[in-house]
């Protein structure tokens, strides 16, 4: 019963402070600090998520996918077409290959313009080129030597095995994701330090009030409760603002990525929008805990 009463008193005091503190300038500063920290945390945490999503997209879209680019070279048009048809037939008979797709001319230019964003450049690179996309059967890995042999008639042609460069790419994205998480951790640590410093600043500004309530019989827990309550209020205001700014930033980053041609690759998903809710709540809870610890430490040293 006493525990319930104490808990209710604690919760009540958290949302409605018993002692009103002096109006000092840091009461305006703190919500701004919390808003900036919240925004930084949202961006820092969404960075590795974005990289992972981009990586996932790259893996999904290239799994079991082989490509060959064949240049017309010095062959005559008719001879080239016949040989391509023959090649498609040969490749289609390979037991590991599910489908063979050929793109050339405008089809190829259109599909590559999405990636390069410039028609002139695509025409320059892909003029007179035929692209053959080979999709492997699920669970079957094609023998690259066989495929390479099949296209060997076209001297410059090479099977582009995504697996080769994907391995290097995945290694790079792994490092980038790791770096992203490190950055998020760094920002969180920085947030923790700033939170502790702002609470200390607040405590110093309110030393007159603290001394008096201490003299009137306030325990350390009671005094720290006042600061937890103030921190809770200011943190909630600040992190909510930070969350709105974070939402705006994510939308902005998505539109920039879309303009750059990374359609869908690193688009914000539900995980990033959950961050907008989790970061403010987490930061607020952390602030209250930090406020409690810093206040108790400060009070023990002071009195």
């Amino acid at each position, binding site marked *: 019963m006493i525990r319930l009463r104490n808990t209710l008193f604690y919760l009540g005091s958290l949302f409605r402070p018993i002692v*009103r503190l*002096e109006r000092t300038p840091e009461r305006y500063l703190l919500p701004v600090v919390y808003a900036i920290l919240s925004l930084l945390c949202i961006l820092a945490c969404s960075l590795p998520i974005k990289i992972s999503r981009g990586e996932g997209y790259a893996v999904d879209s290239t799994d079991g996918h082989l490509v060959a680019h064949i240049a017309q070279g010095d062959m005559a048009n008719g001879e080239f077409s016949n040989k391509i048809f023959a090649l498609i037939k040969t490749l289609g008979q390979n037991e590991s290959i599910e489908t063979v797709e050929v793109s050339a001319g405008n089809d190829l230019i259109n599909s590559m313009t999405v990636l390069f964003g410039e028609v002139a450049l695509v025409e320059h690179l892909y003029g007179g080129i035929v692209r053959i996309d080979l999709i492997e059967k699920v669970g079957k890995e094609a023998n690259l030597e066989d495929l390479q042999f099949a296209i060997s008639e076209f001297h410059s042609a090479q099977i582009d095995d995504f697996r080769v460069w994907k391995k290097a790419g995945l290694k790079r994205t792994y490092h980038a994701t790791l770096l992203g998480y490190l950055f998020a951790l760094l920002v969180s640590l920085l947030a923790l330090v700033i939170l502790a410093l702002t609470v200390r600043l607040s405590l110093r500004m309110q030393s*007159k*009030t603290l001394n008096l*309530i*201490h*003299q*009137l*019989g306030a325990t*350390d827990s009671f005094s720290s409760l006042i600061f937890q309550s103030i921190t809770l209020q200011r943190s909630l205001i600040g992190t909510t603002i930070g969350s709105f700014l974070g939402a705006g930033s994510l939308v902005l980053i998505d539109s920039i990525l879309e303009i750059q041609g990374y359609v869908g690759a690193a688009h914000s998903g539900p995980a990033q929008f959950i961050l907008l809710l989790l970061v403010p709540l987490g930061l607020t809870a952390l602030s209250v805990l930090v406020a409690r610890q810093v206040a108790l430490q400060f009070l023990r040293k002071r009195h």
Partner: protein
Amino acid sequence: MIRIENLTFSYHDEKPILKGLDLNFSAGSFHFLTGPSGSGKTTLLKIISMENSVKEGHVMVNGHDLAVLDREARALMRRKVGFVFQDFRLLPQMTILENVALPLRITGAYGRAQYQQVSELLAWVGLKEVTRKYPPELSGGEQQRAAIARAVVSRPVLLLADEPTGSVDDAMAERILHLFMELHRGGTTVVVATHNLTMARSFDRPILKLSDGRVDH
């Protein structure tokens, strides 16, 4: 109630203000403490109220040695001590009503009945009209009365008052001391530090004179 043995105290290793002081205030007693400025009256009250720590000697309050009490116990002990500060120490950001109710709020014993009690007390000290005002809006005398109301609101077992009548007229000073007498009759131990020897004598209570950090018998 209060037993002081061989108490020596100095601020920051300067010249001692209290020098081997021995004193005894029995429970339910009423004492006046007089002496010239710098004689150690305020320092002694601050040590008894645990605002200053005992460095040398012993101070026992209500059977507890103040030097060995832990932080929680000291806080709980302070709740039983009412202190009228010389500089009032009202919180400027809180109304007079909130300031006076503060000791009750700290103990968690503040409800409708206590609100009524605080209002009546404020009316008794002549502050009925200013309960919603803030301390800077009040005169020195009014602030002092509010500080006195705050010190007695929780009906402390020990009341320490440092120059409680310094900023009020004679009539109000007499009323205040009568309030202290009333609390004393109710069992509260009262120690009043004052310069006003004439008024202290008129109450027919023991007067202790501090001089150069010692009791001048």
